[in-house]
């Protein structure tokens, strides 16, 4: 159900994001208007920040960027990359999703369970896997698999197939028998990887590829279910069908207007 804030937002074209299943979380706690997040519902990177804020029970104002455009505020707050997400706290911008998550963890340290591991070595392991996950190819594999280039798709599928078993293997070492990479509660690495699950499910539906497979990566399948059903996650994780519709819409726009080459789905992810 869209809130009145979402439908009255002048930056939202009336036909693009209206979907009856889409749940929106705007201001929750009265008073904390000093915290804004520039993001979009489809962006896994913005989702990371939102999950972290939810874990800490912190209210914020979500300012949605529209695909293909960049608001004044975004250009001012992130002049270097001009990309979402950007967290703006007391007027000061913080950029780069995992830097934002760490910032949230530090500022609201007392407000909820720790997101980063407390042990320096475990932190280093989590950070290493995040470097791996965010390495050039992972997000771009997901973009390629959504696209129309069949040859590139085969390569992207292989890259994904190589990566996921490594993470499957890392899980018991990180989780130490608990539910998440972070242990008992969702942690830094869970957020970094879990944010892609909506898109992974969408791609599985669009292509018939089984990225998370009961047979090959059973542990990750179990983890994914637990992650997606977490309170901090479920209201911000887009549905696979919404993402598929979004992909089709963007592809239609790109096909219809060759001049608008820059209106790529990737504008929203990052």
């Amino acid at each position, binding site marked *: 159900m869209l809130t009145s804030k979402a439908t009255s937002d002048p930056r939202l074209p009336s036909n693009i994001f209206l979907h009856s299943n889409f749940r929106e979380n705007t201001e929750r706690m009265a008073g904390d208007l000093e915290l804004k997040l520039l993001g979009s519902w489809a962006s896994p990177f913005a989702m990371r920040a939102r999950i972290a804020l939810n874990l800490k029970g912190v209210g914020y104002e979500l300012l949605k960027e529209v695909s293909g455009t960049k608001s004044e505020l975004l250009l001012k707050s992130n002049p270097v990359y001009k990309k979402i997400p950007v967290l703006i*706290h007391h007027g000061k911008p*913080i950029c*780069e999703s995992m830097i934002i998550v*760490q910032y949230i963890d*530090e500022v609201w340290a007392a407000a909820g369970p720790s997101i980063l591991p407390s042990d320096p*070595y475990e932190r280093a392991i989590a950070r290493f896997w995040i*470097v791996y996950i965010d390495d050039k190819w992972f997000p771009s594999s997901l973009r390629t698999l959504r696209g129309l280039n069949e040859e590139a798709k085969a390569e992207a599928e292989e890259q994904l197939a190589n990566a996921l078993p490594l993470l499957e293997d890392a899980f018991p070492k990180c989780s130490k028998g608990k539910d998440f990479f972070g242990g008992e509660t969702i942690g830094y690495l869970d957020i970094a990887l879990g944010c892609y699950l909506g898109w992974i499910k969408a791609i599985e539906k669009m292509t018939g590829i089984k990225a998370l497979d009961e047979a090959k990566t059973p542990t990750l399948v179990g983890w994914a279910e637990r992650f997606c059903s977490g309170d901090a996650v479920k209201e911000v994780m887009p549905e696979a069908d919404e993402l598929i519709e979004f992909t089709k819409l963007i592809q239609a726009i790109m096909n219809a207007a060759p001049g608008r080459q820059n209106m790529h789905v990737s504008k929203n992810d990052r």
Partner: protein
Amino acid sequence: MSKKDEVVMLDFWGSPFATRVKIALEEKGIEFEAREEKDLLRNKSELLLQCNPIYKKVPVLLHNGKPLCESLVILSYIDEMWPSPPLLPTSPYDRSVAKFWADFVDKKVFDGGKEIWTSKGDALDVAKKGFEESLRLLEGALGEREFFGGEKFGFVDIVLIPHTPWFHAYEQFGGFKVEDQCPKLSAWMKRCLGRESVAKVLPDPAKVHELICMFRKMNGIE
């Protein structure tokens, strides 16, 4: 830590990423053994392949036998394990700014420089302009400060300074001068070179130039 720590790093003199780790360890006054890879390009050591099977790259830090990979990850670890003197600022906001610029250096400087020494003609021009833009942004981040974090040498300085011996080669191939484009950054480079930790481990730009010429030959450039 009750017993003596064993700190080993897998190293290559020409790697700016490995140099970052050495500077950090020197700044913290930590005793360590740097094991130089004898033939990084053609014959990586068993230990390297074992400790960093995914990327097979230096630096690797081994702390009491436990391996850590990726230079920025290692730097954060060093700062957390040995908190004094701190490399990162104390406030969460300032820390986020430091991490942002460290990440920017990581994304732009080495690969941006590589674009210069692997390109010719129009592509070289584009590469040069891109690199100059990156340096201007860094100079903007430095501002009037002595170091990126303020008065104290810290995280971003350690992440960026190891790339500077490569600038001489980029200038040669690209036909520009960092000092003309970014005088504040140039002054910052000189200040960093005045520090013992940096002067001790930073490679000679002439040697780096030779290394790049070797890479160019290997890749059939020029």
